[in-house]
């Protein structure tokens, strides 16, 4: 679990502001950069104000991230970004859906529960197929499953 306090908030804000300031000002003097530069300056000023108030008024902020719980989801998202297009949308999203259903199920992982999840995932993916590929005629990358859509 990651504990978040106000120091982390102001440091992150400062890093975001510095990154955007750097990107905006390294890009030359074209008039197209006038507004991005203005927004970045506003962000820079706000981050400095937040740092000032953090030290002056000891602003209180507390939160937490259950990193162990969310890491698998981040992994699934990274997996999809990396290979989703090559594996095909239906195949990769079915995999992701199935793993989310199994991994985050509060019940004990018995064979019955796993079969139940497989059936449910398949039914929902068939519903998605009917909506997107048949009704809306969206051509998604197909690869292994539902290759007919390509």
């Amino acid at each position, binding site marked *: 679990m990651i504990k978040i306090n106000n120091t982390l908030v102001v440091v992150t804000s400062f890093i975001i502001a510095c990154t955007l300031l750097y990107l905006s000002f390294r890009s030359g003097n074209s008039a197209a950069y006038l507004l*991005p530069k203005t927004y970045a300056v506003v962000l820079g000023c706000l981050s400095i104000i937040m740092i000032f108030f953090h030290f002056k008024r000891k602003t209180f902020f507390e*939160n937490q991230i259950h990193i162990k719980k969310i890491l698998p989801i981040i992994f699934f*998202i990274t997996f999809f970004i990396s290979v*989703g*297009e090559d594996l095909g949308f239906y195949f990769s*999203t079915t995999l992701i859906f199935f793993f989310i259903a199994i991994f985050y199920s*509060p019940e004990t992982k018995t064979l019955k529960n796993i079969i139940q999840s497989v059936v449910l995932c398949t039914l929902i993916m068939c519903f998605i197929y009917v909506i*997107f590929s048949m009704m809306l005629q969206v051509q998604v990358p197909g690869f292994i499953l539902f290759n007919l859509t390509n």
Partner: protein
Amino acid sequence: MEFLNYFGEVFTLVNILTLIFGTIGGIILGAAPGLSPTMAVALLIPFTFHMEADQGLVMLGAVYTSTIAGGAISAILLKIPGAPANIATVMDGYPMAQNNRVKEALHYCFISSFVGGVIGILILIFFTPVLAKFALKFGPSEMFWIAILGVTVIATFDSGSVAKGIFAGAIGMWIATIGTDAIIGVERFVVSPVLDGGINIIAALVGLFAIPQVFSLIENKLNQSDIFVMEKRRLVDSIKYNFSRIKALTVGSITGSIIGLIPGVGGQIAGLVAYDQIKKLSPDKADKFGKGEPDGIIAAESSNNAIVGPSLVPLLILSIPGSPTAAVLLGGLLIHGIFPGPEIFELHPKVVWTFIDSLLVGQFLMVVFGLYMSGFAKYVLRTPAHYMAGVIVVLSIFGTYSVQNSFADVIIMLSLGVFMFFISKLGFSAAPIVLGIMLGPIAEANFITAKLIADTQDGILMYLINGPINQVMIAICFLSIFYGLYGEIKKKKRSK
């Protein structure tokens, strides 16, 4: 009375089916704890892209209205508000359920939501064209300030901290500049080929609202074990009692309508203010509130639905959304090429009036289906959080892809979603970022037009600050910032 001319459009087969589907779907989504109206509307926007503009807006309007009403179901049965707007409903709704008055409480919710909703939409119908005539005087400088005002107001009211709100709004406006500049044609901040086409509004909307919801569902697993049994209750008795509570209905509807007109203030504020007001205005019942007093539900629910109509008044005329969900609806308008502004009623009368009329018809459908479906609410409430999370991920991916058949949009959506989850943990809100992304291009286009005009006059600065409308809007910007800061300081003092 122009709105009467377009009533027929609502009753075309396609539109009425869309309205029914949207209303039923909205009640189900609203009842599911953790799925806010904002997220529901954001998730549906990709679907509307494939529809005609009026049909798409009919769908979004129906979902917007019915998710708020549906949110009361989980507020009453689980003590978990289905939407932030239902926070005040929990206070007397859950105690009523504990006293074996579940069905009665649900009846009051839907009937009061209907009354509040109808009043709010009548305000939308009669107030919007008047404001539109006034707003016709706006030029590029005024439109620039309108965009800035929209972001500022949402930023100061929707976040716990003014600095964080404006910071989030500025991030959104900066993100909006990614991609090829529309006027000069320069590529900006294209650090990866994924960003070639800039940031698609729908990808941003879905990513910023739906994906963080997946993380929240997984982080805070909901306890859905204790669901009450429905008692026998005649609907006629509930209707009679509900309409006998004129004071609670009036307080709720008026509070909601006024708060809805103020940009940036959400339904949760309306519900809580109405609840507080009816409590103060009923000294004889003061000790009953919080223990299952129907007036508490009636005031809160009529108020949170009364904001729907008025929250669209500043949205349609000035591009300033009255609530975070209205901010998402702005995306629904933009993807159909409808730019809100004073001329919207002249340029797109059919689309806009059909949308508004459908909201009115939707209220009737909402009360009918809501009352009928509340009996089956327990099934929706038992949907496990992990399946809901899976469905949201899959729908987000397919929905985003379907808009432009672009995998880059999906990558942007997922990346923004993960980014939003982490910064929401730091106390930043999604609504100002989304609004920044949507209003950023409007601000930029008008700024450049203003600059071209100003270069032949006294310069851009003078051009932007001259004129009474500009000055009023600059004053409102500062006022909202100072008001937000004042509220923040007051809150801190109270907590000490």
